C-alpha cells in the first residue's frame, strides 16, 4: 500500500553554493520534529589513486537529472512518512572543501528522515546523470564509477 503523497519536494541543479541553515528553514513545513541533512564535500585527495586534487568539474544531463532525482525522492516518499525533501546538486567547477550536494529530509519521526535521506543519497550516486572530471594540476581525469555505490543501494532492495 502506498502512502499519501503530501511532501513538498524541491530539486535544484545549480552552480551556486547553498546554505544548510537556510535550506533547513525552508524544510520546516507541516511541523516536522526531525530534519536530517546530508552534505557532500569535495575532498582534496583521491585515496584510490593516491593523488591530490586541485579542482573537479561536474557535468550533467539537463532534464534527465531532475527526472531521475524526482523519481528517487518520490519513491522515498512512498516508503517513509515525510513532510518535505530538498535535493541540491552543484555543477561546474568546484574546489576542495566546497559543498557539492545537499539532501534534506523533514519528518515527524526521526527514523523516517534518517532512512529517506540515506536512501536518496544512495540512489542519487548510482542513478543521477552527473559526471566528475578531476584536475590534479597537470592532467584531467574522469572519475570512475565506484562499485561501493552499487553495494550501498542493495540494502534498499527488498
Amino acid at each position: 500500500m502506498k502512502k499519501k503523497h503530501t511532501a513538498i519536494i524541491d530539486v535544484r541543479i545549480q552552480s551556486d553554493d547553498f546554505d544548510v541553515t537556510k535550506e533547513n528553514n525552508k524544510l520546516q513545513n507541516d511541523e516536522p520534529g526531525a530534519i536530517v541533512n546530508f552534505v557532500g564535500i569535495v575532498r582534496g585527495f583521491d585515496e584510490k589513486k593516491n593523488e591530490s586534487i586541485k579542482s573537479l568539474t561536474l557535468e550533467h544531463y539537463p532534464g534527465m537529472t531532475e527526472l531521475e532525482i524526482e523519481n528517487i525522492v518520490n519513491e522515498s516518499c512512498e516508503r517513509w512518512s515525510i513532510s518535505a525533501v530538498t535535493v541540491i546538486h552543484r555543477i561546474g567547477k568546484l574546489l576542495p572543501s566546497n559543498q557539492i550536494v545537499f539532501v534534506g529530509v523533514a519528518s515527524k519521526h526521526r527514523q523516517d528522515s534518517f532512512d529517506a535521506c540515506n536512501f536518496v543519497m544512495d540512489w542519487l550516486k548510482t542513478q543521477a546523470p552527473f559526471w566528475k572530471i578531476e584536475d590534479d594540476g597537470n592532467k584531467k581525469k574522469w572519475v570512475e564509477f565506484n562499485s561501493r555505490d552499487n553495494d550501498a543501494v542493495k540494502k534498499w532492495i527488498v
Partner: protein
Amino acid sequence: MIIKYFSWIREHVGKSEENFDLPSNVTTINELIEHLNGLNNQYKHAFAKRDLIKIAVNKKYSPFETKINNNDEVAFFPPVTGG
C-alpha cells in the same frame, strides 16, 4: 533523432549532441551503435567498451535492445559519478 553524448564518450565522439536521421534499417540501440561505428573511428572508440556505456531513451535508462524511432532522444554516457 537527437543523440547526446556525455563525459568521455562526448570527448571520443567529439561532440555533445547531434541531429541524426535514423536510417529505416536501424530499429534498436544496438543497431544504432553498429551503424555509428561504421561511420568513423571516433564512434568506434567511444563505444568500444559496452559494459561502460549507459543508455537513456527519452531521458529514461534503457537497455541495448530498446526499439527506437526518429522522434526519440537518445543519450550515451558512462556510469554516473555525482554526489
